[in-house]
């Protein structure tokens, strides 16, 4: 067991790699009632072409299968795992993203039992034709719910504008048609390939004893029969640098229009420190331009182009990345024009001042301190950071190290007319 100390944050993180390859992290939070644990595999909606465990050739699996598998993990021969967690006073859940599938619980009592339930249910798959068929109705309704959600449509619409081939463009839940093809054999094939402990990370945070917790996990894992597994072979086709479409409009049954502008990232092979620096710098830049204290925000707000739904974010992982800027607006064309102009001007250094930089950095440090009050934030973000070779607890020093030159260089490299795209939602 290894202990990693973060002085300024007054936190201690305990870590051990199990013999079967599982990474286990434990963070003690004194004074909290609850313990929160996530058990995450590095497997998400984008992993749709790979060589299955024991096979020799690449296969292409139906869209939405990682999410479908997540649903089906909860059903066992003796019933529903939710029922089991409820008896132990825990609330359990799971989510699937582009790159991860996470199973989680939070509880204030019976923590060790709940941890055991979490680890065991994720490590003991049980799929039958009948239960797979039954789930198609439930997930079908989940998909329909998102079909009516204009925020989700605008989010995915923008990503689909950006990407030609990369599977990040595929809706995480798939479509009613694509999930119709899923069988229990597909699920087992994906499970065997991606749920080996060496592809997973367990994070436990809360009112627990780190030593005891790690011993408990070690004991649990030692009883299971895992053999070493070679590196997973995933396939991604070549993705052009420029966006697929400059602009699309979707009409929906809504009263308010939306406008989002997207910027497609380059250098998406970046990992570790370089990726962390890139993400932080881009987010600081967007905040300097569009944050509530910026002159541009004030202008756009006063002109009635934006309201409190206005939003901006940059995210990048291996193979894809994008900035998104926009929100509800009465004048989508006008807002689009302004955001595009601002971004292109930024390339020349316009709007980027030392004062704005200092303020944005301070603001981001403060919001990070707020965020680490939350066990959920720590566990989920730590996992995301670690899967990309980054370190969540380096957020503050990385932010403090960003200079105006860094921001300007990033703007020059990243911003380009042919990597910009727009998605509008208009009332029918």
């Amino acid at each position, binding site marked *: 067991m290894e202990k990693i100390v973060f002085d*300024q944050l007054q936190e201690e993180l305990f870590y051990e790699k199990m013999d079967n390859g599982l990474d286990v992290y434990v963070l003690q*939070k*004194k004074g*909290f*009632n*609850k313990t929160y644990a996530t058990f995450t595999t590095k497997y998400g909606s984008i992993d749709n072409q790979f060589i299955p465990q024991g096979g020799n050739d690449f296969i292409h699996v139906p869209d939405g299968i990682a999410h479908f598998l997540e649903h089906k993990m909860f059903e066992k021969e003796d019933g*529903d795992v*939710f*029922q089991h967690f*409820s*008896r*132990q*006073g*825990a*609330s*359990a859940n799971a989510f699937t993203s582009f790159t991860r599938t996470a199973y989680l619980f939070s*509880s*204030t*009592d019976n923590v060790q039992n709940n941890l055991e339930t979490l680890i065991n249910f994720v490590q003991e798959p049980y799929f039958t034709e009948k239960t797979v068929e*039954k789930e*198609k*109705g*439930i*997930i079908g*309704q989940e998909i*329909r*719910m998102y*079909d*009516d*959600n*204009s925020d989700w449509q605008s989010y995915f619409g923008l990503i689909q504008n950006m990407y030609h081939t990369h599977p990040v463009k595929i809706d995480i839940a798939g479509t009613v048609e694509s999930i119709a093809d899923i069988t229990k054999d597909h699920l087992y094939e994906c499970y065997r390939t991606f749920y080996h402990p060496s592809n997973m990370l367990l994070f436990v945070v809360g009112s627990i004893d780190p030593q005891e917790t790690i011993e408990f996990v070690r004991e649990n894992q030692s009883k299971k029969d895992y053999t070493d597994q070679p590196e997973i072979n995933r396939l991604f086709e070549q993705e052009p640098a420029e966006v697929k479409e400059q602009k699309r409009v979707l009409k929906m*049954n*809504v*009263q*308010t229009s939306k406008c989002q502008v997207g910027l497609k990232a380059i250098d998406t092979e970046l990992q570790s420190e370089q990726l962390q620096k890139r993400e932080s710098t881009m987010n600081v830049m967007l905040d300097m331009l569009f*944050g*509530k*204290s910026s002159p541009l*925000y*004030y202008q756009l707000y*006063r002109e009635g182009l934006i*309201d*409190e*739904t206005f939003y901006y974010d940059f995210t990048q992982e291996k193979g894809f990345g994008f900035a998104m800027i926009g929100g*509800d607006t*009465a004048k989508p064309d006008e807002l689009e024009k302004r955001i595009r102009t601002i971004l292109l001007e930024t390339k020349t250094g316009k709007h980027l001042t030392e004062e704005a930089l200092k*303020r*944005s950095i*301070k*603001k*981001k*440090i*403060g*919001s990070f*301190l*707020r965020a*680490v*009050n*939350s066990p959920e934030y720590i566990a989920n973000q730590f996992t995301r950071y670690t899967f990309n070779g980054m370190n969540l607890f380096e957020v503050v020093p990385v932010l403090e190290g960003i200079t105006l030159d860094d921001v300007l260089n990033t703007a020059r490299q990243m911003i380009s007319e042919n990597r910009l795209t727009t998605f509008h939602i208009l009332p*029918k």
Partner: protein
Amino acid sequence: MALINETIIKKKGYNLHIVRTDKYKTNTIVWKMKAPLQKETVTKRALLPYVLQSGSEKYPTSTDLRSYLDDLYGASFYVDLAKKGDYHTISFSMEVANEKFLKEGEPLLEQALQFLHEILQKPNAENGAFNSEIVIDEKRNLKQRIESIYDDKMRYASARLLEEMYAGDPYALQSNGILEDVEGINETDLYSYYEQAFTGDEMDLYIVGDVEAGQVEKMADRLFQFNSRTPQSSKAAKTAATSVKPKEIKEKQEINQGKLHIGCRTHVTFGDDDYIALQLFNGVFGGFSHSKLFTNVREKESLAYYAASRLESHKGFLMVLSGIDSKNYTKAVEIIREQLTAMKNGEISDSELLQTKAVIRNQLLETIDTARGVIEMLYQNVVAGKEMTIDHWLEAVEQTTKEEITAVADKVEMDTIYFLSGMEGE
């Protein structure tokens, strides 16, 4: 040791609540204002906090104000509105880093309280009127906020259900106010209402964090001074149980998934003797993923992705909600009715009872792990005029029997079934 250490100090015009804890790396400050929900004032009340948060005498524009907050290590500051039974509440919330985690030890808590004082008591106004530019912008945004409810079909269906079920009752109003009334408000009207609210509302200041009570009280005394007052009570009366057939309201829109929202009257509110039994009723019936609604509508019949019930404690209003294919309407309503009947017949297994108690206990304890959760829980007492501690609450959950849950189930009446369906098949 009590789970929450709350000190309440009566001040002129408001109560100061201090909760000391060293759990967090930040300190949280919430200013709450409460008045009866009324058609005449609801829209002004909905506009007021947004105008106040957009500028003050010292920070005339939102840019000035937000720059100052960024300099306070990105202190967060936001306002929100809520309906608590027949009351309309306004909250001003701030969260600021605890200076001990920062290199330079600036007095951030004091600066944050000073800032809140300026927002509340030194607005950007002159000669009895708010700054007109701010009012124009915020009226536009309020209209957009009200209109956007239509775009979120789940929220829209809930709002429509309340309109139908509580026609003529203030509870039918939305916390964002009435669209048609926004335009008519001007900077002078709103300023008069501002004075009225700060003279008559029941007001509470909460401070949660690793703070020193004596010091906080001194700061509050220096910054917040108001007239004494007797807060107004809502005039809405509790309804008596009647047994009428539920109203059925069906509407259509161009959507992919039908939204089924069923409103029930429980005739029990926060602080009543059988209130905890009602919480458990909700837990067994539809509050969780082990509940009857989830198990039967989703897991057994695959009709829905979500099927749940939610309780509004101060009104005693319970809502069932589920997203379904329109063709399954009759079947879904039938299954939901069966679950309610089962509850009334006392069909609650030992396992369901045990699970519900364990999960509610967990939920309560988790809620008080966040500063915001602590404040919301404590504020329930202010709204209901009761004194229920979390320790008492936990104890009462353990003690509640199946018979008590069945007795409360018997009071629950299905009142209105609202269904927003898609156009498929037309």
